[in-house]
């Protein structure tokens, strides 16, 4: 195993984890969005290590670029809303991390307990052009054409739904 890749993995993993923790720890939603950008860019680096070049590019351009800008606009629009310290469920602050820790242990046991041989190593040898835009495009337009069309329909429904939700009603505006 080349040590360069291990160093890159740990840098990317610490960035992704640090960003994720910052998202839930920072009190100002604006900073949470910026922390999520750090998380997404680190995750794109990990995708590159896994030879998913097209997805890494899509992650940076679409997610960290476009979707996060939308979040920033809304965060700036609604302003900084401080969360009250009052807790409706007693002990929620302690129960939630406990449940998340239990979830992590359960997921880890499920993953490591599968005994899949291919998980231990670096993965099988992959053909040239694995994860390139060309390979993904061919798969998307041949084998997964129906899924591709279904996602386009979903996007259309979401766009129309957002317009209906966010549009100002006439009587409200008057």
């Amino acid at each position, binding site marked *: 195993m080349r040590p360069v890749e291990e160093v890159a*993995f740990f840098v990317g*993993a610490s960035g*992704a984890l640090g960003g*994720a923790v910052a*998202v*839930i720890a920072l009190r100002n*939603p604006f900073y*949470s969005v910026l922390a999520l950008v750090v*998380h997404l860019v680190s995750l794109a680096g*990990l*995708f590159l290590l*896994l*030879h*998913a070049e*097209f*997805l890494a590019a*899509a*992650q940076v351009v*679409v*997610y960290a670029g476009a*979707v996060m800008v*939308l979040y920033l606009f*809304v965060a700036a629009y*609604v302003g900084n*809303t401080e*969360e009250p310290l009052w807790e409706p469920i007693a002990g*929620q602050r302690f*129960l*939630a*991390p406990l*449940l*998340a*820790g239990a*979830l*992590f242990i359960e*997921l880890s046991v499920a*993953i*490591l307990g599968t005994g899949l041989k*291919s*998980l*231990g190593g*670096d*993965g099988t040898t992959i*053909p040239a052009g*694995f994860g390139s835009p060309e*390979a993904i495009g061919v*798969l*998307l337009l041949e084998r997964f054409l129906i*899924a591709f069309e279904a*996602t386009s329909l*979903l*996007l259309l*429904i*979401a766009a129309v*739904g*957002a*317009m209906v939700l*966010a549009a*100002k009603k006439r009587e*409200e505006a008057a």
Partner: protein
Amino acid sequence: MSLEWYLVLSALLFSVGASGVLLRRNPLVILLCLELMLNAGNLALIAFSRSLGNQDGHIFALVVMVVAACEVVIGLGLIVAMFRRRLPLNVDEIRSLQG
């Protein structure tokens, strides 16, 4: 790098996202935590795709990205509508459905 590391990292990121959904009360931050969980799933899909040498997982991850984008659009639309009606942006105070 052994692929188990990627999968354990993905489990860890998913748990962080889940604890965020349970802890935070601002709907905007809850949406961000949902993004965290979806991205953890993406990382696992791509790691499995690498381990099997099969690119189907990449298509799955791409579809998850599209679903996440739709969720963001609808969620942010709801938040803007809530803000406009001067409803409190706190999921604990919005607990009744009205027609």
